[in-house]
């Protein structure tokens, strides 16, 4: 009997305490951030969308090799002897045409392993995280500035040069059979 009344008393008191808590919270400022209208600033080193400053890229493939999911695809063509591709912003000479620099953000795991090996610091993470699309293919980012015609021309030139080199090597080899091999 004593327990019965104590239970009732406790039920009433605890319900009133709980109602007090909820009533106080009715006037507490909401913690919600109304996302599309109000955006929280991300930390300075947050890792979101990748970006490549292609003008600084020297086509060294270090980022592509570091990538654990192979989402960076690079193609390069050697510059001609008389061609000057300029310098990167930290003073390295560019010796290669970077004809293709694609990053598949659908594959990217945001580890930023590609950022650290870059000798010219041209690949880095930006704080932009709003790049959802309706088509998975549009997550494939193209950074190279070469048009398909230019790429074709460069490839043809490279092939021609290779052919010429091979022929030259053949001639050299034919001429050099009499000589004993000294180098390489």
């Amino acid at each position, binding site marked *: 009997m004593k327990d019965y009344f104590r239970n009732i008393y406790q039920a009433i008191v605890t*319900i009133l305490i709980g109602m007090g808590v909820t009533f106080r919270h*009715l006037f507490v*400022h*909401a*913690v*919600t951030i*109304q996302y599309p209208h109000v955006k929280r600033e991300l930390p300075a080193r947050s890792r979101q969308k990748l970006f490549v400053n292609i003008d600084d890229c020297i086509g060294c493939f270090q980022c592509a090799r570091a990538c654990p999911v192979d989402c960076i695809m690079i193609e390069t063509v050697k510059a001609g002897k008389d061609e000057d591709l300029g310098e990167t912003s930290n003073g390295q000479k560019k010796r290669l045409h970077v004809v293709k620099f694609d990053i598949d953000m659908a594959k990217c795991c945001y580890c930023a392993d590609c950022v650290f090996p870059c000798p010219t610091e041209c690949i880095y993470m930006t704080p932009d995280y709003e790049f959802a699309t309706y088509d998975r293919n549009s997550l494939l980012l193209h950074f190279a500035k070469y048009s398909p015609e230019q790429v074709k021309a460069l490839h043809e030139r490279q092939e021609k040069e290779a052919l010429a080199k091979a022929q030259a090597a053949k001639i050299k080899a034919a001429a050099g059979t009499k000589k004993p091999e000294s180098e390489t």
Partner: protein
Amino acid sequence: MEPIIKVFFNFIPALADLPNWLAVTLIGVVLAVGTFLYIAVFTLFGVWLERKISAHMQDRLGPMEVGGWHGWAQTIADTIKLLIKEDIVPEKSDRFLYKFAPYVVFTAVMAAFAVIPWSKKFIPANLNVGLLYIISISSLGVIGILMGGWASNNKWSLYGAMRSAAQMVSYEIPVSLSLISVILITGTLDMQEIVYRQSGTLFSWNIFHYFPFAFLAFIIYFIASLAEANRTPFDLPEAESELVAGFHTEYSGMRWAFFMLSEYANMFVVSAISAVVFFGGWQAPFGFLNFIPGPIWFLGKALILVFVQMWIRWTLPRLRVDQLMYTAWKVLTPFSFALVLFIAFWKVL
């Protein structure tokens, strides 16, 4: 209904020329449509308010987008969505009962509006057994819920319906007994008369005039009416975490909306009854506030009680079935019986 008919005749004299049966039917239809519109608007407002209150009690914001100011049009958008939704009837359900159930539930709730006194003049049907009528009509709803649960041919629906039957039948008793104790005090079943007996200031309202007893009766009535209206902490018939949605699991679109309408209308009805029976109905708390019309006082009192219902909903967790039965049979019923006996003796002596 006579005062209302007189008011209508005053407004539209042409009605008096019609045969009596036609005029009465027309007035009845107008009143019913008005009640339905009121229920619809109250539900829109109530759902919005509930979402806002629940959100703010949990330090959230709730709907904020639709309509501009604090998402006021959110429930209107929801209603449009419900209207254009597909009406699914399960293949192996009892089609007639399935389609009929929401209307039974809704009619039972809406019928209670007939005897609610809004002001000195406006009470749709001034029955001399108004309170008895409400007690009896509000137990009809459980039939509709059982129909819906059984006809859905779904175990969750059936469980929900069975629970609701057990719950509503048990909680009828404390509801009736706590109202009976007030009937003993006022000595009438007439809703309008109950309000008149409480005229004066705040302290002549039943709840304060007969302080400990009527207050206890109010607490018992309030707890039991939460169970009657299937509100948390007694929302076992539609316990989301166990029964998907309870008796209305299979319902969609407008039929589901009718269950929702009746739930919110029921909230209002039980609050309106306690406003009438315990808080002096449409009477102002003090004489000098009489210039504010009665319906505003009545609505205000009812809405405050609706707010308390929502407040409790977002404070307490759901009871277990055995705790529910314990509360009804071992706590509320004995207390209300004791109260009735005590008040009866006191009245006789």
